[in-house]
């Protein structure tokens, strides 16, 4: 089963939930130990491993095909530069210029060129890394090169490492744009993490719009519960959205977070709660109409 952890915006505790859920599910101490994979899909700012401290190794380079123009063969007919939807090619009177950072690697220019002047090569967008050896949970992350914009391509490459026999937890990037869609697109369930504040509530509504558009079943976790007011709870109730878990606005949790410690490690009683949540998700997916609290 694939579960994505998402939120309308950053800083709501997405990474905290992903980590603590993955750790709870893969804990050998408990009788329900599962094969769990954790994927850090926030490839612009992957933070999960700051809390896990795994030794990482590179498993692959993420590359994007890019054109190379043979200036000998090119007769500057401009067909390629006229076609390129991303302005990655510009025809000057004497040659065609290429701007790699704008190219999406669609391959159209190579198909079009009447002189067969365009060959393709690869440009690096980022890397996929995994925890060395046997880790629990199994951990993968993508890392986008600085100044690079092809975020979704790295996420898609990362998701190729999902093993369908295992439970995969995906820590999605913040927002509601393309990279979020790339992360949440084909998962079985989406957990939306929010806070009951003015901003949190507004962003939750946007995130609900995303998962509804993608037709992914979902539920909500209210983080820093007790801070703010009850607007999120009222909204969920009115919309029939299950509230899966409430994580209190607890100084101890915040302090552990600041030191880079997932709180289930120091507060093991929370493992049960995450496991219960996992069961509740399974029930919801099985279509059981039960009040989940």
């Amino acid at each position: 089963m694939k579960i994505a952890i998402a939120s309308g915006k950053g800083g709501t505790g997405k990474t905290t939930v992903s980590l603590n859920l993955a750790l709870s599910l893969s804990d050998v101490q408990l009788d329900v130990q599962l094969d769990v994979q954790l994927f850090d899909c926030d490839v612009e700012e992957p933070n999960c491993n700051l809390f896990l401290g795994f030794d990482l190794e590179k498993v692959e380079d993420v590359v994007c095909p890019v054109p190379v123009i043979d200036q000998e063969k090119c007769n500057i007919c401009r067909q390629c530069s006229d076609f390129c939807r991303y302005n990655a090619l510009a025809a000057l009177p004497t040659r065609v210029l290429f701007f790699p950072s704008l190219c999406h690697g669609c391959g159209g220019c190579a198909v079009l060129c009447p002189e067969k002047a365009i060959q393709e090569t690869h440009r690096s967008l980022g890397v996929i890394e995994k925890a060395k050896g046997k880790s629990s949970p199994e951990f993968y992350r993508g890392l986008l090169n600085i100044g690079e914009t092809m975020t979704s391509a790295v996420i898609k490459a990362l998701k190729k490492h999902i093993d369908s026999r295992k439970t995969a937890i995906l820590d999605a990037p913040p927002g509601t744009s393309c990279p979020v869609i790339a992360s949440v697109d084909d998962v079985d369930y989406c957990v939306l993490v929010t806070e009951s504040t003015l901003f949190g509530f507004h962003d939750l509504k946007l995130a609900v719009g995303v998962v509804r558009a993608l037709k992914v079943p979902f539920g909500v976790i209210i983080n820093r519960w007790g801070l703010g007011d009850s607007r999120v709870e009222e909204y969920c109730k009115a919309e029939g959205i299950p509230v899966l878990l409430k994580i209190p606005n607890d100084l101890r949790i915040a302090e552990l977070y600041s030191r880079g410690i997932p709180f289930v490690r120091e507060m093991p009683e929370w493992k049960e709660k995450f496991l219960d949540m996992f069961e509740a998700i399974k029930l919801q997916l099985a279509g059981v109409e039960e009040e989940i609290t």
Partner: protein
Amino acid sequence: MKQLTVISGKGGTGKTTLTAAFASLAKNAVIADCDVDTADMHLILKPEILEKEDYYGFEVARIDPELCIECRKCREFCRYGAVNENFEVDPYGCEGCAVCTIVCPNGAVSMEQRVSGQSFSSETRFGPMAHAKLGIGEEASGKLVSAVRSNAKKLAEQYHKDLIIIDGPPGTGCSTIAAITGTDLVLVVSEPTVSGIHDLKRIIELAVHFMIPTVVCINKSDINEENTQLIENFCAEQEIPVIGRLPYNDIVTKAMLQEQTLIEYTKGSECLNESEFSDQVCQIWARVENILMGVQDKQKGIKTLKMKNL
């Protein structure tokens, strides 16, 4: 005209709260909410929209089933897997590259414009504001950020404002790049957590990469003194000034729930702790203004800030 961009490595650091406070302190500024993906500033500033413009991102392909002879060429050449077995285009998967239009032997594919969002020019109780709304799952927010910035510029000219305060997007992606390029100063809001420090380093790398003078403000500095010290040391090493430290204070949430900036909120507050907090915000703003004055010309500004790697 000067431009200041407030950014943070990640969301949730208090960036928007701080920018909104600046908006209520600045005397002659235009506000630009460039966090177009999760625009929140309007919740506090409640802009009255004066002008609205549709924003077109990339196009999307459409296959005419009448003309399609199911030759599979489009599926074969589409590198994003956006054409399904029934020869329909998935609008979320399509990158609008138009390759399918050139390989289709029967002219069955056309490219259609799609409205990917809106940009707005507005009026708020603190002056003009440029902002936007991005449609769900839309890309190219960098382009939309540029549209917001150009609207902000127009507003500044129209209303004779000499400063643009930009609330930037989180992260280091294309919209962040679009929000900082060509600005006079970047203020990074950071928090003293392990991940906060990590994000700060990445964002500073980005600002240095684009050679923009940078200063740092540490929010919730008292939640972890040790990490606050680490941030200060790192900034000292990089010769990046730390222009303020703000303690954790739930006034931030309280003001937000009242839909006020924290400056407005504390005006009526008797609480010493709260007014002290907003005094500190005022001081940070004064420093930012000073530095912005100093960057009269880029060269001098850079010298003032003693940026490394420049």
